[in-house]
């Protein structure tokens, strides 16, 4: 081994440029670049922050609780704090950048928590993982919003869930809970939302969703009913317990069916009614109540007990609705006094009015307004005489003061009223009975019995069997008298006179002058004088005929009887003759002849003339009676004439012996006839009075 080391090349150490950076420095620079790059990337990829307010935290944890959309995490709660004044919990959520643009005003947020209900268990995963916030928004990009108010419950219609959105109106005491199912043949085809009480408080509104695939099951003639709980029915088939499912037993539910075909497609937002039972739902198909009822207010002046909620409202006898509510109303400003009036709220079903075309509440209201302008009024009427229940009737009142169907301050249109019929219905029935009770039936019967007795006695009397021969001669004389020329001339002069009297009286009446009246009366007197002298031969008979005819023309039964009496009196005189006794059959002949004679007279026109004349005379006499004071004179004169006639007839009377029985008989007949006459008069004047009591 040598001491000298081997010759190795020896180089001076390379001079290092200290200020020059070593290649190693690339590493920290790279690291720095990477760090900066990552930082920038993560910053730029960071989405915006939104703030959602909730009533309570419900387990939201900063940094843990996720925001999910369709069960995919799209954000995370970064901080949980309070709003100003500690009123709400505010969760600030960092949302993913690509989702953020869709979170606009349509977004809804709610906290998903485990929930155990009759319909099942939801949100079970949150038991382990903790709650999360579910968001729902539509697929359109809207203006960015970063403050939201969280919903208390999940909305009925989730994102991506399509279906028919309808609403239910219910007044029943159903046990509908939120999220109760809508069943169809036992299969869930939809879901109820949250029930809310309508603003007026008279029914509940529940929104509901029919899933898209079952949309076609519902149309406009579909009826829904409450299948909550169970029903127990005991019938001929034994006891039956019926419930749709355990879920509806506990949580309530709605089921439906379309009982009739021909329903049309419905739009979102259609309102259906929930009927308490299937039967009612089925019945309701036929009075389609898809249209909202119109509500009217009616204020009745009289408070009559008997009107109840649910009482029918009738228009022309047709049930168009019912009484919805009853209350009293006191309004001094409106009515002028402080009386309590009956305020009834009517619910009118537009479909029942039978309007042509599409039935809407507006059109029905227009129709009613038009009818009210034409006199349609509401009134109370008896629904039943037995129970005393009342109904509201709408009737057209002719000539009613103009009124309009106008809305009052509380919003309901007020229907004008008319006089109620209910109050006097019972009264009229009572009146009928009272009047029937007051009829002189017993009197009538007594009179009738007396008449019968007297008639019997009269017919049975021997005197009647002996009709005097003189009857015939009398008749002959009458015949001859009547057929004489002078009689034929009577009507002419009489007519002329009376027409003069009539015109005169008319003038008198027109001018109202006493002097003229006196003159006219003087004229009448002189005319009457002339009249009485011109028929010197038979004045009495003429007068009598005149009186009889006058009375006959008045068609009064009593006068007829009087005439009968007079005639009979004459007949009595005849009956008394011995010839009459011998010749009973000749009476008929004589009367036949008289009849024939009178017929001849009539045919000859004389009678007609006489009738006309007498009618004129009667008119004249009526006029005179109204205006003249001198009537008694004429009457006196007529009486004297009549007396003369009586005496003339007495001249024919040989015996002047009237049997007592005949006289009584005649009186009885007269009395009976009087009674009959008055009854007939009453009946004739107003045939309805017997029944109506008016």
């Amino acid at each position, binding site marked *: 081994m040598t001491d000298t080391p081997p010759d190795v090349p*020896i180089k001076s150490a390379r001079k290092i440029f200290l200020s020059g950076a070593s290649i190693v420095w690339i590493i920290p620079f790279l*690291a720095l670049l990477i760090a900066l790059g990552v930082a920038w990337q993560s910053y730029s990829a960071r989405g915006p922050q939104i703030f959602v307010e909730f009533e309570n935290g419900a387990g939201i944890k900063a940094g843990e609780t996720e925001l999910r959309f369709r069960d995919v995490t799209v954000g995370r709660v970064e901080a949980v704090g309070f709003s100003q004044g500690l009123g709400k919990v505010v969760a600030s959520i960092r949302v993913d950048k690509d989702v953020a643009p869709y979170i606009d005003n349509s977004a809804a947020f709610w906290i998903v928590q485990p929930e155990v209900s009759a319909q099942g268990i939801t949100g079970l995963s949150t038991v382990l993982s903790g709650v999360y916030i579910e968001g729902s928004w539509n697929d359109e990009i809207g203006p960015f919003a970063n403050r939201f108010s969280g919903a208390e419950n999940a909305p009925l219609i989730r994102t991506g869930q399509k279906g028919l959105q309808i609403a239910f109106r219910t007044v029943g005491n159903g046990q509908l809970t939120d999220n109760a199912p809508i069943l169809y043949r036992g299969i869930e085809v939809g879901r109820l939302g949250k029930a809310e009480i309508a603003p007026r408080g008279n029914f509940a509104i529940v929104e509901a969703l029919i899933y898209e695939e079952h949309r076609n099951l519902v149309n406009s003639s579909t009826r829904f009913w409450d299948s909550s709980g169970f029903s127990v029915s005991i019938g001929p088939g034994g006891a039956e317990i019926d419930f749709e499912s355990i879920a509806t037993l506990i949580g309530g539910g709605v089921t439906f069916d379309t009982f009739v075909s021909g329903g049309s497609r419905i739009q979102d937002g259609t309102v259906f009614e929930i009927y308490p039972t299937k039967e009612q739902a089925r019945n309701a198909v036929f009075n389609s109540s898809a249209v909202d009822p119109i509500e009217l207010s009616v204020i009745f002046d009289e408070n009559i007990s008997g009107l109840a909620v649910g009482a029918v409202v009738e228009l022309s006898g047709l049930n168009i609705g019912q009484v919805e509510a009853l209350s009293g109303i006191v309004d001094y400003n409106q009515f002028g006094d402080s009386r309590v009036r009956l305020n009834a709220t009517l619910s009118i079903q537009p479909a029942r009015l039978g309007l042509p075309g599409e039935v809407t509440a507006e059109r029905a209201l227009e129709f009613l307004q038009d009818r009210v302008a034409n006199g349609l009024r509401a009134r109370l009427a008896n629904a039943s005489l037995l129970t005393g229940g009342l109904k509201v009737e709408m009737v057209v009142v002719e000539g009613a003061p103009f009124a309009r169907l106008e809305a009052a301050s509380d919003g309901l249109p007020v229907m004008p009223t008319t006089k109620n019929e209910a109050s006097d219905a019972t009264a009229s029935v009572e009146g009928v009975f009272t009047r029937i009770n007051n009829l002189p039936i017993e009197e009538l019967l007594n009179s009738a019995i007396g008449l019968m007795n007297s008639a019997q006695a009269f017919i049975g009397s021997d005197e009647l069997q002996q009709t005097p021969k003189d009857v015939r001669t009398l008749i002959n004389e009458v015949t001859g008298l009547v057929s004489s020329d002078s009689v034929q001339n009577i009507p002419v002069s009489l007519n002329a006179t009376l027409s003069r009297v009539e015109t005169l009286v008319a003038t008198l009446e027109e001018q109202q002058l006493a002097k003229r009246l006196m003159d006219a009366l003087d004229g009448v007197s002189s005319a009457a004088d002339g009249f009485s002298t011109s028929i010197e031969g038979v004045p009495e008979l003429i007068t009598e005929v005149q009186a009889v005819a006058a009375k006959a023309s008045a068609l009064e039964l009593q006068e007829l009887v009087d005439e009968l009496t007079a005639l009979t009196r004459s007949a009595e005189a005849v009956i008394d003759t011995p010839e009459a006794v011998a010749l009973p059959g000749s009476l008929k002949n004589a009367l036949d002849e008289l009849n024939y004679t009178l017929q001849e007279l009539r045919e000859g026109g004389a009678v007609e003339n006489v009738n006309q004349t007498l009618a004129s005379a009667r008119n004249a006499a009526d006029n005179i009676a109204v205006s003249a004071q001198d009537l008694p004179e004429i009457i006196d004169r007529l009486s004297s004439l009549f007396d003369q006639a009586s005496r003339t007839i007495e001249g024919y009377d040989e015996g002047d012996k009237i049997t007592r029985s005949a006289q009584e008989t005649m009186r009885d007949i007269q009395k009976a006839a009087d009674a009959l006459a008055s009854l007939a008069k009453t009946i004739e004047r107003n045939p309805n009075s017997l029944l109506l009591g008016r």
Partner: protein
Amino acid sequence: MVGMELSGTPQKILSARQMGLVACTRCTKAWPMGTQICGRCGHKMVSRDYGSLQRVWAFWVVGLMCYIPANIYPMLRTKTLFQNDESTIVGGAVELAHHGAFGVAAIILVASVVIPLAKFWAIAFLAISVKTRRMASNSARHFMYEVVEYIGRWSMIDIFVVAILSSLVQLKTLATINPGPASMFFALSVIFTMLSAQAFDSRMIWDDRSGNGDSTHND
């Protein structure tokens, strides 16, 4: 060479460099100054690797950069049936301390926080002390260097724990442990500090720093 002298005497110690020699760092054979390749093992030889300081600082910086996210991000992701835990190093230690496990908390704190920080400080101190006037005795600095080099690998104990837990506890939904992002950064940090410590040329500790300004430039 040094051992020849009587120990304990405050005699001036000559370095190989002062004697005109350069030692091979691989096979430790001394060669005359200026030799560039070791004649025995072929290793490249420099008497004083002044470029090492730059490497030290470069790795030191990267290590420190990695140490920051290692402490910010979660180290472990523990998913159990009921909850999902993500804990950072310090957070985990504090949590353990809350539960009363002070010992474990102390171990974690020492292994994951104190030692790495001390390493950063020690390397920086050594690197600075080479350039400046005496701050501590040469032997003390050398001891410090040896400790740093020895202890550096033990910092990986955290990473081992994470790796073992992650591979063992994979019980599907019941319980799962996954390494968090911090574990990677922590491992990187440890690696870079070790690289930094290795890059340090410990021979520089013995150079007389009084006149080092000239000598470094001339030799």
